[in-house]
């Protein structure tokens, strides 16, 4: 009898331990969000979103160029990584057992593990140096390299689950192999592939390191991909490390915008997964 009550006590203690530990771990997350919202909310206004950064001490500064820049960088990255990512994912599904596929899988794993700063250096050597200057294009390529593994993997994982019978149905109608892939197999996995793309975007949206020596930053608005360009992570990095209080304030505001964007993407991804 005694032994039983000790066991019950231990069970209860363990459950309490689980709950308390979880709560403790939620504290830093809550604090991060709290600080960013508290410090950032004050500067956020329509003007903040639509004006350009100004010298310290002047009012009415904004981050419009960083928002546009981030959009342009992510857009370039998506444009480059999505077609290649889906193609490679399709290859891995279709030639699942080939030797080349296992080599590709290892490469993808390695690419995923490469620190983002190293990817930035590679983009600097391959694109910035030959082009003779920093550019949005080189930043976009660095980000594309970071998105690629996520898109390849989610495509492969999704397409693997598509029943073989669908492929047979299409081929059985006399549809050529390439059309079967493009019109049946890839659309059937659309949700899963889109999820991978959104996760990839969420990941690179906050990347700073690969942009330091590729996109570089730019205090002005530009839409030219061959020019240096600003982005949310870059403006946060540059302004937060500056000695001016009003610039630091802008960095908080930019952090809040960035976090809202990434949170929004995660929520969107969740609803897509549920469907």
């Amino acid at each position: 009898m005694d032994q039983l009550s000790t066991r019950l006590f231990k069970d209860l203690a363990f459950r309490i331990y689980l709950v308390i530990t979880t709560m403790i771990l939620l504290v830093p997350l809550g604090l991060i969000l709290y600080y960013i919202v508290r410090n950032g909310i004050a500067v956020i206004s329509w003007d903040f979103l639509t004006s350009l950064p100004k010298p310290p001490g002047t009012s009415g500064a904004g981050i419009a160029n960083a928002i546009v820049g981030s959009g342009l960088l992510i857009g370039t990255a998506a444009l480059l990584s999505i077609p290649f990512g889906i193609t490679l994912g399709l290859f891995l599904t279709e030639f699942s057992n080939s030797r080349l596929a296992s080599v590709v899988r290892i490469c993808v794993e390695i690419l995923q593990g490469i620190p983002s700063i190293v990817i930035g250096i590679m983009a600097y050597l391959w694109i910035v140096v030959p082009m003779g200057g920093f550019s949005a294009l080189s930043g976009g390529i660095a980000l594309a390299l970071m998105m690629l593994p996520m898109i390849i993997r989610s495509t492969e994982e999704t397409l693997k689950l598509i029943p073989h019978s669908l492929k047979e149905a299409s081929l059985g109608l006399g549809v050529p192999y390439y059309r079967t892939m493009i019109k049946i197999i890839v659309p059937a996995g659309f949700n899963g592939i889109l999820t991978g793309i959104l996760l990839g975007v969420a990941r690179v949206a906050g990347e700073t390191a690969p942009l330091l020596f590729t996109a570089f930053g730019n205090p002005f608005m530009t839409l030219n991909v061959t020019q240096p360009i600003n982005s949310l992570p870059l403006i946060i990095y540059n302004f937060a490390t500056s000695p001016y209080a009003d610039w630091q304030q802008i960095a908080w505001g930019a952090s809040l915008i960035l976090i809202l964007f990434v949170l929004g993407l995660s929520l969107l991804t969740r609803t897509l997964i549920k469907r």
Partner: protein
Amino acid sequence: MNKQILEIDHLTVTIGDDKIIKDISMSFYRKKVTAIMGPSGCGKTTLVRCINRMHELIPNTVVSGSISLYKKNIYEMNPIMVRREIGMVFQRPNPFPTMSIYDNVIAGYILNGIKLKRTEKDQIVESSLHKAGLWNEVKDALHRRGAFLSGGQQQRLCIARALAMKPRVLLLDEPTSALDPKSTAHIEDLISELKETVTIIMVTHNIGQASRVSDFTAFLYLGELIEYGTTEKLFTVPDDKRTEEYLSRKFG
């Protein structure tokens, strides 16, 4: 006399090290239903898959001998053309999940990039669904996705999809094995109606089904064609002892 549409000549199929089909020769008759029956693993599915070259999807498959459609060897034709002439319906219903019922029926045209006028499309969809006995059940939901259909309805949708390509031969690979008895009866009735327009070759492991719907029956055992003849003869006075034993359910 019955006209021959399809001839199999000394067909042997090996997959890896296994001989699945052993030197089979037989002819199929136009606008008749031919049932291919036999115990599991006798090669009946492989045999029909060879007829529209779907076996080419399976790696390490080696085929010798020939199959000819109206005297033309299908192994010398483009597989894509073969599959348009010889349609196929599979064991499990496999409508395209991302397409509406309407688009599923004309999927063969859409996916092959064949342009049709609106009126032609409507006409093909309606007549194919009529032939598959599905029109009355889905005519008000043509532009909805087919996911809400029952298994039997989905299978009839797949039959409509195959018929829409106006094939000369329709292969049915155990079309009712995943269906309930009521849907099975519905599809069996349908098969009897369809032979007015198309030659049907049907694989079945159900002896009763073969006797109910087919004009000719072939009995396969361990990759060999044991006996082939009119269903009436094969079921009443089989020549081979093994056929008799299979029919009296001594094995299989």
